[in-house]
């Protein structure tokens, strides 16, 4: 099956009200081209699961400013003042989850695990309403798996089968986000021949990737800028 799509094509896999799992840590490892396309679409009432909401007017911050988002689930939104303001104005619902719990919950979503008991956040406000359980004398809270409708991820290289490798810490949440949605779209810097990626080095095996879109951003002085 040919997985390569033009950037305009992937949008048909996203519906109003969908829950999107989006890779990235701040602006690093963020699918900028895919985000631009969603911003330019008529899609609305989306929920985003991502560590941050980008920066003001950048990355996922664009979707916020374009009023595409009803809800954001993640660990750190304070670096985008627009997100804070949208929350204050009642325009954006926010669910805050510790960063490690977020990563693990999405991993579980992709791994057929329903939930897990974690040490993190025991005895805090973020544990309110959550089941506490003592295992081997230690207290844990129950966290449920997170799954999405569509995952938007960013990798460095893909082969035509959809195997992925990442650029340094641009890896971050992308490999787990790739596992936990019905449809997974990977934006990549480069597409290489099948067999060019070392089997021991492949981080995301192709079973997880439904479609590949070539990025319309290029790196200049270490920062991605639009190429067109």
């Amino acid at each position: 099956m040919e997985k390569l799509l033009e950037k305009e094509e992937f949008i048909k896999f996203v519906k109003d009200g969908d829950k999107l799992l989006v890779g990235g840590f701040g602006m690093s490892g963020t699918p900028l081209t895919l985000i631009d396309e969603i911003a330019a679409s008529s899609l609305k009432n989306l929920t985003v699961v991502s560590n941050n909401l980008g920066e003001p007017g950048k990355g996922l911050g664009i979707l916020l400013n374009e009023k595409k988002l009803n809800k954001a689930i993640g660990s750190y939104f304070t670096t985008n003042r627009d997100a804070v303001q949208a929350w204050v104005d009642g325009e954006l619902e926010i669910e805050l989850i510790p960063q490690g719990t977020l990563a693990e919950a999405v991993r579980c979503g992709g791994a057929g695990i329903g939930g897990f008991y974690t040490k993190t956040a025991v005895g805090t406000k973020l544990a309110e309403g959550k089941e506490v359980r003592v295992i081997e004398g230690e207290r844990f809270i129950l966290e449920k798996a997170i799954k999405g409708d569509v995952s938007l991820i960013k990798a460095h290289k893909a082969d035509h089968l959809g195997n992925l490798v990442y650029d340094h810490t641009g890896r971050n949440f992308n490999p787990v986000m790739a596992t936990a949605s019905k449809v997974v779209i990977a934006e990549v810097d480069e597409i290489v021949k099948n067999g060019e990626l070392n089997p021991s080095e492949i981080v995301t095996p192709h079973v997880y990737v439904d479609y590949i879109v070539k990025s319309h951003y290029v790196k200049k002085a270490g920062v991605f800028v639009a190429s067109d």
Partner: protein
Amino acid sequence: MHQIDRIKIAKRIVQELKQGQVVNLGVGIPTLIPDYLGEKKLVLQSENGLLGMGPTPSAEKVNMDLISASKAPITMEIGASLFDSSNSFAMIRGGHIDVAVLGVLQVDQTGEIANWAVPGQTILGVGGAMDLVAGANKIIVATVHSSKNGEPKLVKELTFPSSGNRKADLVVSEHAVFKFEDGTMKLVEILSDIRIEELIEITGADFEYNSEITNA
């Protein structure tokens, strides 16, 4: 707070760290530590997916896909490894980080930490704070003794939201070093020319001390 006091705290914490230890440095004062290590080599973990974080690169070597958890460009030391966020927090939560050095809003006299939210303000960021508190083998708190408003940061009971039940091991301020043992805060060392009466006065928390330290 004077930068000189922040540097004093960082330098004193360096004495607590051992060659080769795996350390996660929080934001604020902890980020000063790499500048004062001297000959000591640490292995720095960055929770966005790197073990073996090196110093800031020169401008022409910046790659914004090689960044710290504070989103600043970094380099990799020899022997560094890269991994995803779920594996990074498995490392943190699973007890594989020797020491986390954390800034705090408050720490109480049992060692419980508040470092993610201020009451009455919007609570929209927690990041990896609670995972580090729950998972690091040793927690060293780096903090100035009093807040900008002159209020004690070492308190009897937290008035800010807790970061978890797991207690800190040590707190270092510009005036003193305290350790936490069996739920009690104990003075280890005085770092300034402050008198013990004065230290008690500006410290909200109750602490134990002995005359060897106060007369040193």
